[in-house]
């Protein structure tokens, strides 16, 4: 997906505005990158530290993973920008179908 408001070659787009937008974009990426490193460290720490049961650690790490995926999609793959309606529709539909499957398997087959 293109990212028209930032990288378009259109000379009519105000250069100052574009520069400001890019700077903001960069800041978001750096912040989310730092957060992702931090979350990864927490995940390792959760396993390394004694005293937590597996029943806490596994859901906790899965939760961190979900947060990371959201960061990845929205800040690095530009899903927060306009023009991504179709990809997000299909992403969320897929997540829904997958979630229903997992829910069904975990409720009526395995437990």
């Amino acid at each position, binding site marked *: 997906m293109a990212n028209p408001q930032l990288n378009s070659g259109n000379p009519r787009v105000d250069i100052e505005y574009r520069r400001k937008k890019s700077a903001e974009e960069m800041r978001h990426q750096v912040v989310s990158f730092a957060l992702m490193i931090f979350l990864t460290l927490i995940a390792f720490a959760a396993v390394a530290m004694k005293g937590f049961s597996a029943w806490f650690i596994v859901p906790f790490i899965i939760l961190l993973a979900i947060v990371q995926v959201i960061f990845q999609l929205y800040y690095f793959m530009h899903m927060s920008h306009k023009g991504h309606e*179709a990809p997000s529709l*299909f992403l969320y*539909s*897929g997540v*829904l*179908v997958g979630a*229903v*499957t997992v829910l069904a398997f975990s409720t*009526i*087959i395995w437990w």
Partner: protein
Amino acid sequence: MSTYAQKKGFGATLWDYLTTVDHKKIAILYLIAGGFFFVIGGLEAVFIRIQLAVPNNDFVSAGLFNEIITMHGTTMIFLAAMPLVFAFMNAIMPLQIGARDVAFPFVNALGFWLFFFGGVFLNLSWFFDGAPDAGWTSYASLAMASKGHGVDFYVLGLQISGLGTLIGGINFLVTIINMRAPGMTYMRMPLFTWSTFVTSALILFAFPPLTVGLVLMMFDRMFGSNFFETSMGGNTVIWEHLFWIFGHPEVYILILPAFGIFSEIFAMFSRKRLFGYSSMVFATVLIGFLGFMVWAHHMFTTGLGPVANAIFAVATMAIGVPTGIKIFNWLLTMWGGSVKFTTPMHYAVAFIPSFVAGGVTGVMLASAAADYQYHDTYFVVAHFHYVIVGGVVFALLAGTHLYWPKMFGTMLNETLGKITFWLFFIGFHMTFFIQHFLGLWGMPRRVFTYLPGQGFETSNLISSLGAVFMSLAVIVLLYNIIATSVKNVRVGNDPWGDGRTLEWALPSPPPFYNFKQLPLVRGLDAYWLEKMEGKKGMTPAEPVGDIHMPNASFLPFVIAFGLFVAAFGALYHMDDKAWSVPVIIIGLLITFGAMFLRSVKDDHGFHIHKEELMEDDKDKGVKA
């Protein structure tokens, strides 16, 4: 078109079709291959009805009967209904949205060849020690115990053809999202395009579970894993879930395009705008969505427990609501319209009561408590044949008559078409209506024979006689096709005279680039709008310019063929044949080699220059 209308030899034509990436030619390939498998599946159905016509019959043995019912179901669903639906999607959808081709023409061809080789592989099982015999659902407890290679053919064949379907569906999605003509907003898309869109989304989400299920079964059967082997800690019910998470959306993958075709027919031949267009779109999307929430209604008697059964029962009944919206919209489209009873319209009108009958038994089956009584009886057989034949097959036959002129440039004979319709309509109800009662009287499905004196004789005989009518109908249709092709009377843009959507604004068949200038779409039923304002054709949205076209390629055929070869190696691997691993490697080398060639060799396609397009215009002037 002039340069392409010249007579070509048989070899050149064959090579043209083997290498084509044109969506219209791929549609014809799908139609021929799907029609061929439809005839094979139909013959299997006839054998079933011959065997069951009289009690204690020994026309086929019990084992062969199991193979025939399995192959009948599998062939009809995967190799006949789906490709025929794909044929119309390929032929019509790009024209309806005003596109010059699908988004990925090469991938489109690859999808066809994967389906084709998968289908051929599956049917070759008849000649190599036995066809699959575990039912089209291939439940793991049966499939694991099946002797011979039948189930392996099923697993590998469906895996290959399923790949083809999946990439075909993705292709349609990308096409509809990105390649609509100027002015063709989502809410101006014809309903057949809408149903193609929702169907493709269902394919995208439904086929991965099937792929996973087939991979697990392949490992169980061929490489000694134990996913479904209960004695080794596996769970056979997992297959049922995976299969039906795919299988239930699959039936909507079949029926939604049928709804789309009928929506076009009702609007065209009632000479009226489709009643409640936006509610039709809403209902289509809602059916697609709910289709993923109901799979366990196929498994009520598996022992899921009352809570799960209740949830899935209610969800299933909810699907009746959007379907009901559609039925009423079709009725109200006809109401007050100036209805013209052409062959397609015959099918459309007959579809409503037939499909509603199937829907009503569907709601009956959805009540989990009652389902314990209906389960595995002929009542279920009657139900799903009412929805699939009364819905999908009617739509495919109607679509064949409706779109034949657009695909081939000649009209099928209307009288013969109506004879086909009446034979098929009578035969269909004769065969399947009585099966409701057979089921309620206690005849179980999938039995190869029954004893005299149980009250099943007359009804089964009537049912078998109905199959004769349906066979006659198909023979008349084939005769009609041959006679029409031999006469070859060419028709113009809008042979029905009532075309509403963009495809009827083009010559029949359209030139290989479809639109010389992309059309400007000014509303729903774009072509009808222009006609009503006294215009001859669409207003162009762009000046005449060079058109970029993809090159033909033989690689899709080669890629699919490699997998076909590798599948044979995998199949005989469990027999400890020395040649099996080399064959797998050779097959995969062919596939990946062809893919590698495609990746490294740049293929930029070619341009049709403005001057040639102008030349074409002059040619046409002379001919007309």
